[in-house]
């Protein structure tokens, strides 16, 4: 066995990128009090949007903007039906994901005549990989940190931008206020639906970036169903971290590693592949159990403390 572990880590970062974006997308709506399962379908639509815009616009950047635009539009569709139409968000998201699965194939068929993938029918564009000067010459670190996709760096940056947005800006405070207690927020003059729309807009941008990464960086075409649950994984990553940006990114990274590990083990060992495919999901369940146990303990300690304080009075 002769495994290149440095490249393995670099790959895990790459594989975590769409998950980080998906987690950030889900996180912002969660902070506004909405559990958005529609991320999966939004990413799928954006992945198709990216390649279509890139092909007809003739540039990778048009594609990237197109992917973000489709993310925004799909976010607005869910927001409209849930906030203005007052539908049940879960049902809307399920319906939306089903619609995205069929609708993307339908649109692909209309535009290209293909029902499976755009590999042959739409020109491939790739978001460039960036070699960072100086850092790329550092032995081990250079191979991990340098040479990643532009979007991978943007993902890292986005984690801190989202943290800044939520903790340090007025709009972030409002989003969190609506999430904590919508009636209280409304009583001080915050428009709950407006904040909901804004959070879905941010969600759409990140879903768009996730989709663009899948169809213009990881591979350079769209294929039906190509998200394959990565949206849901991102959703559970942010859930594990309780909606904290940095924690969600770390959880996504954990999934990226689990995914990368399952691929390497598949090639290097004789474990049954079905078992290896379970690793990321097994990691999810374990991580959720651990985080919820921690949360319960914390709550119990607080309750004990208040009970004690009450007794002392």
């Amino acid at each position, binding site marked *: 066995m002769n495994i290149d572990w440095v490249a393995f880590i670099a790959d895990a970062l790459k594989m975590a990128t769409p998950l980080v974006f998906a987690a950030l997308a889900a996180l912002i709506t969660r902070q506004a009090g909405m559990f958005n399962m529609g991320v999966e379908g939004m990413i799928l639509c954006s992945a198709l949007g990216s390649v279509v815009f890139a092909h007809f616009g003739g540039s990778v950047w048009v594609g990237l903007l197109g992917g973000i635009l489709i993310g925004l539009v799909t976010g607005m569709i869910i927001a409209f039906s849930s906030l203005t139409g007052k539908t049940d968000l879960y049902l809307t998201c399920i319906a*939306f994901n089903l619609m995205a699965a069929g609708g993307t194939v339908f649109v692909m068929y209309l535009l290209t005549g293909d029902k499976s993938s755009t590999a*042959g029918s739409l020109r491939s564009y790739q978001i460039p990989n960036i070699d960072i000067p100086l850092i790329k010459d550092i032995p081990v670190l250079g191979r991990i940190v340098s040479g990643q996709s532009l979007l991978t760096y943007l993902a890292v940056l986005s984690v801190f931008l989202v943290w800044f947005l939520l903790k340090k800006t007025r709009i972030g405070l409002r989003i969190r206020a609506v999430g904590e207690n919508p009636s209280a927020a409304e009583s001080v003059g915050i428009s709950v639906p407006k904040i909901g729309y804004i959070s879905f807009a941010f969600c759409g941008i990140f879903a768009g970036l996730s989709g663009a990464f899948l169809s213009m960086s*990881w591979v350079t075409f769209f294929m039906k169903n*190509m998200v*394959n649950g990565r949206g849901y994984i991102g959703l559970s990553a942010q859930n594990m971290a309780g909606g904290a940006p940095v924690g969600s990114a770390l959880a996504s990274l954990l999934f990226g590693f689990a995914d990368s590990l399952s691929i390497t083990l598949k090639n290097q060992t*004789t474990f049954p592949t079905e078992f290896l495919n379970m690793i990321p999901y097994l990691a999810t369940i374990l991580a959720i159990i651990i985080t919820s146990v921690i949360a319960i303990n914390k709550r119990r300690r607080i309750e004990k403390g208040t009970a004690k304080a009450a007794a002392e009075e």
Partner: protein
Amino acid sequence: MKKFASILLVAAMALSLVACGGGDSSSASTPAAGGSSAAASTPADKGGKGKIAYIVGNLGDKSFSDSGEAGMNILRGEGWDVKTFELGDATKADKYEDGILDALDQGYEYIVGSSTYLEIMIGLADEYPDVKFVGFDEKKDDADLPENVTCIFYAQNEGSYLVGMMAAAMSETGTVAVDVGVENPVINDFVTGYIQGVMDWNEANGTDVKVVKAAVDSWTDPAKMKQLCLDQARNNKADVFYQVAGGSGDGLFEACVESNTWAIGVDSDQYQMYKDGENPEKADVILTSMLKEVGNSFVSLFHQIEEGDTDSIWGHTITLGLAQDSVGYVDNAFFQENVPEEVRTAMADAAAKVKAGELTVKSYYDFADEAEFNAFVEAAK
């Protein structure tokens, strides 16, 4: 406003039906195939040729189902009344039987469906003794087949054997790969033939080329497939990749472009598919493709039926291999340019030997059980 949610749900379902089941209308509205639309509207002037229902998941896969459709188009041109029924992917599995019953209700005399639908067809065979059922890409003991059912089985191991020889010959690193979508008996038969081809090449030429095999466990996850292949190129030093992975295979070709290695396509001529498309430069890694001529097999089957020579058909499994030109490999200019002549000759010789019955290629169906197959795969690693 629960009503709105239900409207949305209905819209979603309608859309997914349009996307997945759109084939009925599309096949009827493409008259390119020698007047099929006219044929569908006036079955009475069919001159006695039968009505065929072609049951597929989805057209547009650029391989298996489309190859069958091409064959059906030829039959349409010859005056058969063929209608294609697209029943959707595995999530619609509960509707498969309804779809086939629908075709039966419309009076189709021949029902042609892949292995996916074989069990359902066998179940219906007794109830509809006047209808003939054709299951393709599956092997069944004759004892298990009712009198009005036939199975067409393709010897994919024979075609894979030949490309396996080529892979071994073309490898500079001494490792080649075969990456599959989801493991099942037919897919394992591809793998078996390929590994046997590599091993026989080793034995004949004194080389020691290894085979690494992996499954992505999805037909539509090209991203994971690409990663898998890059990992094999890096850690196993594999430099020739054979894809038996449906849509996921497109990821394999990208990995080959990126890692500067060779690829082998499957089912149809994938070099030509890319050359004719928007990304012709991606074709330049595909040395050849293992062909599985589903469409041709339909044409020859129905010719045989037309001639009335049906004793060997109904109630039997028909195996079609190199000898029947139902499997093979693409021999195009790119192949001739890049594969040395002695390798090409060796492949042609082996093909001739298989055709003549002098050489038998190992098949997955020869293994006693799964463990024996796994040991075979492991021994090649």
